[in-house]
């Protein structure tokens, strides 16, 4: 079996004497979707920042298998390498689309930016790829020259996804990707995500407080509480048969109307 795409070991982050997260370890392979669930303050956002190299751990390591097969510790990457990774082999979908998009740039420009950043210099090709991606995320191609400010919340989120996937990344981080959206919009977005993840064989690390999102998207779940992983396993197993009392509480609370 090939080495994992990403391998976290003993990941610990202290902010002074306040704990961010402690002793987190897991592997993720291509095509796998891992959900990190927990309430706010559980450490899941800290963990996402550590995993995506945006925050340096107090101790522990994150190893990533680059496209050329070399395994690199994220903390050893230069700023240039980190940026390159972020616009080629990685994606990051923010809860707030305004953080993940350039609101003053057209939808086409938003999707094309990554291509241009890695050297694409043919306008027609860039535009054709942007059109193709708008279609794939179910945005009318006729709206390619509009700015995201003219888009609905659901469309913005789909545009953010297109912008991230245009370089065919292998790993996508998602931070509450459906947060703040109406239920029907959420369902459509999740459906789209599921399809794209399957089609592209993406590995996804999705942070959510919403177990329904985890249920629909993920293969495996890690439940976090007070900075530690308290339960982890296959999604169906954890949600149908939670072992920890805290997980049982979380599960039962979503089952309530």
């Amino acid at each position, binding site marked *: 079996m090939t080495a994992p795409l990403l391998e976290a070991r003993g990941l610990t982050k202290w902010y002074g004497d306040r704990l961010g997260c402690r002793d987190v370890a897991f592997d993720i392979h291509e095509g796998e979707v891992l959900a990190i669930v927990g309430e706010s303050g559980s450490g899941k956002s800290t963990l996402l920042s550590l995993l995506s190299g945006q925050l340096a751990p107090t101790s522990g390591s994150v190893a990533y298998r680059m496209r050329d097969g070399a395994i690199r510790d994220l903390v050893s990457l230069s700023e*240039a390498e980190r940026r390159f990774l972020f616009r080629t082999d990685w994606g990051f979908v923010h809860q707030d689309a305004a953080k993940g998009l350039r609101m003053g740039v057209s939808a086409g*420009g938003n999707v094309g*930016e990554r291509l241009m950043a890695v050297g694409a210099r043919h306008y027609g090709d860039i535009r054709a790829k942007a059109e193709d991606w708008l279609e794939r995320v179910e945005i009318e191609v006729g709206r390619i020259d509009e700015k995201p400010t003219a888009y609905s919340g659901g469309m913005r989120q789909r545009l953010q996804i297109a912008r991230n996937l245009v370089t065919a990344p292998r790993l996508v981080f998602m931070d509450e990707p459906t947060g703040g959206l109406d239920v029907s919009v959420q369902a459509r977005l999740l459906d789209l995500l599921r399809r794209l993840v399957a089609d592209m064989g993406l590995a996804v690390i999705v942070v959510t407080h919403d177990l329904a999102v985890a249920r629909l998207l993920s293969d495996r779940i890690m439940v976090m509480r007070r900075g530690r992983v308290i339960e982890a396993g296959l999604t169906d197993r954890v949600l149908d048969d939670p072992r920890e009392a805290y997980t049982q509480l979380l599960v039962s609370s979503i089952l309530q109307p």
Partner: protein
Amino acid sequence: MTAPIKPAEGYAFAYLDEQTKRMIRRAILKAVAIPGHQVPFAARDMPMPYGWGTGGIQVTAAILGPADVLKVIDQGADDTTNAVSIRAFFQKTAGVAVTTRTSEATVVQTRHRIPEKPLVAGQTLVYQVPIPEPLRFLEPRETETRVMHALADYGLMHVKLYEDIATHGHIAKTYAYPVKVEGRYVMDPSPIPKFDNPKMHMSPALQLFGAGREKRIYALPPFTRVASLDFEDHPFERTRFEAPCALCGATDAYLDEVVIDDRGGRMFVCSDTDHCETRRQEGHRGALLGDIPEEARS
């Protein structure tokens, strides 16, 4: 050409004190060593408003020697208030010879044009720069633009050009058109018309850029490769004019629109007044030469 005169008493040569000039020269040397890279310098207040190009004036003051011959142009013209005042300033404080002839000048200070007559080895062109940062309107954070330059992370420049084509069908930028220097730094050539961009490429002259308010100096040493940013399928195009200069008949010069009477009459004439006059003296005649009053010609 006006011969050198004795500089006014009580001023340091070219106004700035020797220590300040040495500091500016160090910044210039650094800028020459890293073509297209913006070098910070401790800009001084000059006895004129920022809009007059105090950055360029300080660069000129730092490089001027008693034997230099100075030409100052503003949008191509030697006779605007701005050009006349700066020329007079250096005549008074440095006593240098001044000229309107590009061919006679050793130092040309310019606001927003490059002379039509190709510059030669030994000449220095000093640009007055209002905004030195080409990424400014795309990324307002200076900490971030600095990192972008350091990493040659310039995809955003093309996003801007992409947006232009998406909106207008072509790259609409006609002034301050960004360039890449020696395949490395993206640089704002100051608000010269894009017509002038090709003149920067492989010029035998030294080109220095000074931004006073923003305290930056950058440079193109002689024979530097300068490429205007574009797309393969939307290549950079120099502005072309429909008709030749109405006064000298030039077909390869940058033209300004000039109103010639109060009945809405207009003509297109060279923005480079020295170029136009020289051509007329050489016997070139445009369609309207002789038809319009002398006052309207310059």
